[in-house]
């Protein structure tokens, strides 16, 4: 299994959904973030003029992924940023068993003249939201309100 995502059509008629896959939680988080980014903008039209570092931890991997994706939506509105790429690591902490996320998003302020903008995501939802392990890999199903 490699890190990837595909948009799903049969889940949310009026909205947008995707399934992301990765060999590890880190790859799953990166693939999911790319799906959220690509819902809002064509990443090849975005330059890398700024970076946003995001660190979070949570006992639940599901909640951690949910909050990480919600961060990307938040940055779109609060700081007017869209992204072209993401790097992240997700590991279980020895000390307390929480999952630790260290992520970096690369992108720039929204510029409708240069960016191929797509849909303005309102929220990451819990509808049919799922993170699971399958054949040693990790799979997430996410529905976004458009």
């Amino acid at each position, binding site marked *: 299994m490699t890190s990837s995502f595909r*948009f799903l*059509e*049969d889940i*949310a*008629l*009026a*909205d*947008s959904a995707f399934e992301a896959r990765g060999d590890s939680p880190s790859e799953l988080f990166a693939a999911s973030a790319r799906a959220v980014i690509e819902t*809002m*903008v064509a990443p090849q039209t975005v330059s890398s003029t700024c970076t946003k570092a995001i660190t979070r931890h949570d006992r639940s991997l599901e909640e951690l992924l949910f909050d990480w994706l*919600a961060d990307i*939506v*938040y940055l*779109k*509105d*609060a700081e*007017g*940023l*869209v992204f072209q790429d993401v790097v992240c690591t997700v590991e279980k902490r020895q000390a307390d068993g929480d999952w630790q996320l260290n992520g970096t998003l690369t992108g720039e302020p*929204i510029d*409708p003249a240069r960016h*191929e*903008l*797509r*849909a*303005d995501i*309102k*929220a*990451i*939802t*819990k*509808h049919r*939201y799922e993170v699971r392990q399958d054949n040693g890999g990790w799979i997430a199903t996410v529905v976004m*309100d*458009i």
Partner: protein
Amino acid sequence: MTVNRITDQIWEIPASEKPGMLVPARIYATEKILTAMDRGVFEQVTNVACLPGIRRYALCMPDGHWGYGFPIGGVAAFDRDTGVISPGGVGYDINCGMRLIRTDLTLADVAPRLERLMTELFRRVPAGVGSKGFIRLNRPEFDEVMRKGARWCVERGYGWHHDLERIEEHGCIPGTDPSKVSDHAVERGISQLGTLGSGNHYLEVQVASDDRIFDKPTAAALGITGHDQIVVMVHCGSRGFGHQVASDYLKVFEKAMRRYGITVKDQQLACAPFRSPEGQDYFAAMNCAANSAFANRQVITHQIREAFSAVFERPAESLGMDIVYDVAHNIAKIERYAEGELVVHRKGSTRAFGPGRPELPEIYRQTGQPVICGGSMETGSYLLVGTDQAMQQTFGSTMHGSGRTMSRAQAKRSVRGEQLQKQMAQRGIIVKAVSMSGLAEEAGFAYKNISDVVEAVDAAGITRKVAELRPIGNIKG
């Protein structure tokens, strides 16, 4: 699932159909619309019928389709003392709603300047991903927007004083508390006043022609005089601010449900007793977002008037640009019915109060409340009025739009945005769009025929159609 015909437009799923249902579910639709409805509607409306304190029926309007927790088109009323409040019954876009503005202009006046008018509107009303408005606010000022809604705008010159009586709740819902709103929500919304957003939100220039006015006296009372009169319709909500309030409180309610021993059939139906601290906090925060949406549409109205004034070189006042009405279709409100005070949730459903209700402004006390229903950008939209029957049957509620029948991805595969823009131009509709893929997603064929939906609510008697409004210019995010 057992669905019994009550009348030609009312279908009932009995409370015995699903374990936990406290009341029956009722769907307003013609047989044709009912047959075509997605199965999610039936599951979701019966899930809503299981929520604590629900009264009479869980309802769904003919434009209903699958939503998060509640179906879109859903209406449910809960006892104020023993019932719940649910963000899933309001939706992520709190006080998403419709506003209609009339003018004294006709198609003959506007047609020669339509391209320039649409360019001017597109320039003045920001749309699309993460767009920002022209008003810069600090936190105390944004708190005032949350408390005062459209009234805040009018006090600062973004509107006329008599605008307020033509907005549901006079554009200012009481019971707000900005301290119940997260910093995240404020940060997402503070720069977005006066912006459209994307998805199915739009600003549309439309024509009211004589042959599409069904009730001339009522239309005239609402300011719709026909003779190819130009009107402007706006569909948008509380933007990132409201979206974040909804997201925040869904999390709060997930935990609160465990504390109150509430179980629901869908995680997105997360709810809390209305009288609980969590329920009251959400209600106060939701009202803040609802007021910000009224303010958003008010600032957009100001910009529309400025654009018309610039293009026609006359003050907006002399162009007769009064608001016809502004009404929410994603909201929870306290309203009084035979059972007493109820928490009425409308999600993709419009308040449709009949004549005589004290909540209506004097100018509409006789006609009933104006109801604005947006169709797809290629077809048309409708102006209707509320009825006594809606008060008796549907907690004064009706449809809100046409409802999707095709996924966004399928719509994009069927047509390219540029191609659609060209086709619409050939039919006399000028479209300005930030996102061409977003435009393709909103193609007319992706929606139900709004006329079928309007005929269903008209025949059911829960609203009366007044006029159909045909698009000639559209702005999309």
